[in-house]
């Protein structure tokens, strides 16, 4: 097994940990946090893939855009880095929105148990109230 595959396996285990947490936790808050674990692991997977070709940051030095093709082989791949940069920002904003929705739900049912939240309103703890 090459070093890349080994690192990939470790990152994928982190993805798996997040996914299992997302599926098995009954608490909505912990589900949201497990989702963040998955997203962080996916980000590291992209960083790992970008570094597969070379480790030098893809920022050129010198006064011309011309790159020696041999020297260019040592640069990291800029495309996965740029792709995942957008995912980081989206992940942050979605996380903020999800946590806010969770805190609003917590004022209705502080246990945040998914099975209880799924029940129809009439059977909930505030039955009969507006």
């Amino acid at each position: 097994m090459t070093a890349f595959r080994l690192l990939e396996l470790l990152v994928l285990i982190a993805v798996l940990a997040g996914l299992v947490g997302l599926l098995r936790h009954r608490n909505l808050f912990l589900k949201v946090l497990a989702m963040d674990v998955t997203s962080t692991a996916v980000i590291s997977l992209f960083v790992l893939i970008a570094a597969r070709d070379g480790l030098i940051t893809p920022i050129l030095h010198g006064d011309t855009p011309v790159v020696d093709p041999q020297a260019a082989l040592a640069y990291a791949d800029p495309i996965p880095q740029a792709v995942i940069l957008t995912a980081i920002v989206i992940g942050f904003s979605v996380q903020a929105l999800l946590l806010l929705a969770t805190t609003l739900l917590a004022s209705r049912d502080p246990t945040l148990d998914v099975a209880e939240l799924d029940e129809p309103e009439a059977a909930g703890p505030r039955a009969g109230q507006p």
Partner: protein
Amino acid sequence: MSLRSLHVLAAVAVALAPLLQALPDTAANGALITALSEQTRVPNLVSGVLLYTRLYDTVAEVVVFTLASMGVVWMLSGEHPQARIHGLDDPAVLVLCRLGATMAALVAVELALRGHLSPGGGFAAGVAGGTALALLLIVQSGHGPLPSEEATHRNLERTELIEKLAVLLFIVLAFLSLEGLNLPRGNFGALESGGWIPILNALMAVKVTLGSWTMVQMFIRYRGLL
């Protein structure tokens, strides 16, 4: 087999599937770097990809971020703000917060203006700027009475107006760039090179700064500091 173990099996299959995929050849990278640097004409190729070759993607991403910060404001607007917020009062922490805010603000300007030449770019600059404003907010909220409801509201509206103007300008400039209307290219590696890229970087920095600041401000105002 119960449904829950089936869930876990599905998660294992999804998570470990990439291990079985064959990897593309690495030799293609040299040609890619050369092509990108000639197309985008900026040293920081990640900025070039983000704001030139994949600009269409970035526009949608900016819109999603704006919608999320609007969503936070909208969801919290029905709540009651905290009457008083327990702020920090340790002098050493306050000095460190102020120092951190100053540093973060300077770093934000540097990252926004030179994002196409060195590591940085609009998103990183926006996060640094948002951190600076949030640290100042933490320092201020421990001192004196809170500003009145109307003052906060007016402040927030002005911030949102500037943020939305930045987003609209970003979208307009992005479509100009997508249509092929470009600024003069300038010298490679100079501050005013790379067409629209430096301007788009600065607009994105303004937008992410104000957006993340609005979110942090709403969270502190309605949920308190601790």
